[in-house]
């Protein structure tokens, strides 16, 4: 048993957000220490601020509108002794959980969990640590996610990175941008998610096929990018971010301003924008030609509560120009082999900001409307409508043969899509023990492509779903079950020769799962989730040379849907202030797994022979293990250990599946020190990351180069804050690949052409600005 008493400061979950006056909130759970079960009807109050809440059937409570960064919190329940805690809120979303025990002769213990307790699912959900978010978000979304075990990245060069959950990416995972499914031709290997991490205050990953709630094709998992709600906003608040990265001489600036607009209507708003500018990156031995980027993003939000409906309008735009390594745009197989033999790029251009062809130009726009209202006996009803526009132009190295100036400025392939999404539903409680959600979704998408790879097409998806959770206190298990029916239709219109083709898919996704609260420190989850994915247009109808991948791709119009059976067992141990351990074992049986198989002979074109691939189906089994551990070695020193392994097997060919991430492990120390002179809230993390060579590759499918050797990288992060006048400036230093190791990563499609980046050293500034409040 732990003998803990009043904790003075806890949960330094430092986003580095200083006390935002009256914007603080805490929420958590109250547990009965002897049974480990949650307590309904306990009260949690802030003694001197006259704020409080009562816990619900699951023992959860939320207190909003807290004005001070320190608070005395009291938790009480009939039969349990009162407990007082001095709470130091450095984070506007602190968790504070209580463990109460019956009053007997010994002292009570108050313990606090560092775990977040949001929607409970039978597959684990992990959040990106706030310091990692601060130090990585200027790179791209995927870079912030890689800190979670089981998440890897599929790269095309250093600037284009797609997140992979347990080996699955593209349209096998769902990315939610502010609650809306991100639609941007994500079937493409070199199409990275068009989301600005600066608009998010929380980024999390659900590591399992949560298809019923989020979408039938969430076969690997769901990534949620969420911005802070404005509900608690009572005064003007701003955040300014800025930073510089040495590798690439990259500069960025981002700012965000939130303010109440018309108090009478409860109208509040936020406006946000980011700008990034960088030039050529370098490896330990040479610069990479044409690897700069330009990016500008902005968004605005309006929130109000007309007639009790909590309503939000959100608009965001994402625009970037990405240089693509010049040496990666080769012509044909012969050129590719020459490049591989050469072992490094043809030229070392040195550093320049100049951006030329080949390049990618991406524009993404999201407009969202959402409203919800809680009705006493019924539940929370919601409705949302969103429009997305996505345009991606791929500019090949060769300016097109044309004397017509207008044509020579055009990309070789230009993908464009407009997607409408409608969602509605009701979150409800049925009696005391059952709570769930029933809803519908409708998506209509129109795609046109300028270029000869895939046809134009329209997609329509209609879905209904129902999910329920049952928990009867004091029984320690919570059960959930869900069902979702989706109908998807694909209609194509134009190809080299005009024709029309329709495919229609109707399938169900379902799940059963359980969450077992063993004791206050240990949670076990087990879930069986079924998800499915209709083949995308590239898999069905590709017929052409894809310059981006230097291959000729052939689709198969008869391909059927993939159906995935996902089993997951996971545990979360949280012995606060001593040990936290998350561990997951999973099995993903994917029937009808779609992949590309090489076809011989290569296609002969006027440019020479190109490797040719045809889409095929097989049955696959993907299984693996992830774990994240933090162990306290001494006061203020934590030991970290994290790792993942994945086995991806083609059951028909009886061989491994190509292009899957290798095993990796990382370990290190985190040292925290409250004050060093003027520096406050200091956190230093040293991390050694080792990536193993991928030996699970197929024998019969040849790759142009063998998987790269294993490599080890040393990384360092240091975060601190200093007072500047009445505000607090947060500073982060991060060094990636401190030893300037030369290496190649198997999951980078450009590993044939060059090494990965050398050392990247960056400095990040964050200045939160808030008006002083009257105490």
């Amino acid at each position, binding site marked *: 048993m732990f003998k803990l008493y009043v904790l003075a400061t806890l949960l330094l979950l430092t986003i580095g957000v200083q006390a935002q006056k009256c914007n603080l909130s805490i929420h958590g759970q109250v547990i009965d220490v002897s049974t480990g079960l949650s307590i309904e009807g306990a009260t949690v109050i802030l003694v001197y601020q006259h704020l409080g809440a009562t816990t619900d059937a699951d023992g959860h409570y939320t207190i909003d509108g807290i004005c001070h960064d320190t608070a005395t919190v009291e938790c009480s329940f009939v039969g349990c002794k009162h407990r007082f805690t001095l709470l130091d809120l450095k984070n506007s979303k602190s968790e504070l959980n209580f463990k109460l025990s019956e009053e007997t002769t010994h002292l009570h213990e108050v313990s606090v969990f560092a775990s977040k307790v949001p929607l409970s699912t039978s597959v684990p959900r992990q959040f990106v640590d706030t310091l990692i978010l601060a130090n990585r978000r200027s790179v791209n979304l995927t870079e912030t996610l890689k800190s979670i075990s089981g998440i890897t990245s599929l790269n095309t060069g250093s600037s284009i990175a797609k997140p992979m959950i347990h080996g699955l990416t593209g349209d096998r995972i769902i990315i939610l941008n502010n609650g809306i499914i991100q639609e941007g031709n994500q079937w493409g290997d070199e199409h990275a998610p068009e989301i600005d991490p600066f608009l998010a205050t929380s980024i999390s990953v659900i590591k399992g096929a949560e298809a019923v709630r989020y979408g039938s094709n969430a076969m690997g998992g769901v990534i949620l990018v969420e911005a802070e709600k404005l509900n608690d906003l009572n005064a003007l608040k701003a955040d300014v971010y800025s930073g510089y990265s040495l590798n690439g001489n990259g500069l960025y600036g981002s700012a965000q301003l939130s303010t109440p607009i018309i108090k009478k209507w409860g109208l509040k708003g936020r406006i946000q924008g980011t700008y990034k500018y960088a030039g050529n990156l370098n490896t330990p031995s040479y610069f990479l030609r044409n690897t700069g980027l330009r990016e500008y993003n902005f968004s605005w939000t309006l929130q109000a509560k*007309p007639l009790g409906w909590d309503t939000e*309008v959100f*608009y965001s*735009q994402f625009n970037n120009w990405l240089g693509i390594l010049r040496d990666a*745009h*080769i*012509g*044909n197989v*012969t*050129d590719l082999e*020459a490049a591989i*033999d*050469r072992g490094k790029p*043809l*030229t070392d251009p040195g550093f320049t900001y100049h951006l030329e062809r080949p390049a990618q130009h991406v*524009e993404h*726009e999201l*407009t969202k*409307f959402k409203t919800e209202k809680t009705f006493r006996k019924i539940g929370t009803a919601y409705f949302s*409508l969103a*429009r997305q*526009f996505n*345009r991606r132009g791929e500019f090949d*190295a*060769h300016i*097109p*043969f*044309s*004397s017509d100036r207008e*044509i020579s400025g*055009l990309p*070789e392939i*230009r993908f*464009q899509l*407009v997607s409408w999404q409608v969602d509605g539903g009701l979150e409800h409680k049925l009696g005391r023990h059952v709570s769930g959600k029933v809803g519908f979704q409708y998506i209509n998408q129109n795609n*046109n492509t*300028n*270029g*000869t790879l895939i046809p134009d097409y329209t997609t329509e998806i209609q879905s209904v779903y129902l999910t329920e959770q049952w928990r009867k206190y004091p029984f320690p298990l919570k059960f959930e079950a869900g069902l979702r029916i989706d109908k998807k239709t694909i209609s194509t219109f*134009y190809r*080299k020769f005009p024709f029309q083709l329709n495919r229609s898919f109707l399938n169900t996704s379902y799940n059963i799962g359980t969450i077992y609260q063993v004791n206050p420190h240990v949670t076990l989850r087990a879930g069986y989730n079924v998800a499915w994915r209709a083949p995308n247009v590239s898999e069905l109808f590709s*017929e*052409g*040379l894809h310059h981006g991948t230097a291959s*000729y791709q*052939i689709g198969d119009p008869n391909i059927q849907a993939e159906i995935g059976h996902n089993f997951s067992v996971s545990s979360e141990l949280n012995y606060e202030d001593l040990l936290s351990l998350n561990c997951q074992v999973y099995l993903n049986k994917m029937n009808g797994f779609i992949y590309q198989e090489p076809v011989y002979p290569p*296609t*002969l*074109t*006027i*440019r*020479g*022979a*190109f490797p040719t691939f045809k889409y095929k189906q097989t049955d696959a089994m993907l299984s693996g293990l992830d774990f994240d551990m933090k162990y306290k070695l001494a006061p203020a020193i934590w030991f970290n250990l994290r790792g993942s392994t994945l086995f991806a097997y083609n059951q028909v060919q009886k061989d491994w599946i190509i292009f899957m991430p290798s095993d990796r492990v990382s370990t290190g120390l985190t040292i925290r020190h409250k004050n060093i002179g003027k520096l406050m809230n200091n956190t230093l993390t040293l991390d050694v990351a080792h990536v193993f060579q991928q030996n699970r590759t197929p024998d019969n499918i040849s790759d142009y180069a063998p998987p790269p050797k294993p490599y080890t990288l040393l990384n360092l992060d240091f975060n601190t804050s200093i007072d500047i006048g009445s505000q607090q400036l947060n500073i982060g230093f991060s060094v990636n690949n401190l030893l300037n190791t030369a290496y190649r990563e198997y999951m980078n499609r450009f590993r044939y052409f060059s090494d990965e980046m050398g050392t990247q050293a960056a400095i990040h500034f964050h200045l939160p600005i808030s008006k002083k409040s009257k105490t």
Partner: protein
Amino acid sequence: MAFLALVFVSIVVVSCKKEDNHDHGSDQEQITTATITFSLPGGVNATASWRDIDGAGGNSPVIDTLVLNPITTPLNYTATISFLDESKTPALNVTEEVQEKSDEHLLVLQPSANLNWLIVTNDKDKNGKDLGLNQTVTVAGSGNGTLRVVLKHEPDKNASNPLNTGETDLDIIIPVRVN
């Protein structure tokens, strides 16, 4: 519900980005046809074309055989190469584009070893380096072989083997018969 309608309208109005009109008909120029002409001072010509009018995939390319009937041996031919985009009507002459961006292009003729030809490039680019649209080929003996024609984009013209550098715009093999 007027509120909802207002919101709907505002979403459409606010969304700035609209689709651009695209015309599949105006696809960019490409090389569909490469023609090599071996000529003699008197005006005697032998030509062979490599044609793939519908581009990659679809119908297979149609490849002529270059047939030479040299009167004497050895004999100096002037080899000229031209490019067309025959997917358009009328056919577009792409050779001019290559000529305009001469510093970015290099054309290399690679006969099979058994033909024993001697090749000299006549034309130069803007920077005085080889271009290759006009070359002198000294043909000796008779026999069958192949002629590989490669057009490189942005090669390293100073490299010992420029063929292994840059990007390939054209890489075709034409059968050759010398009588």
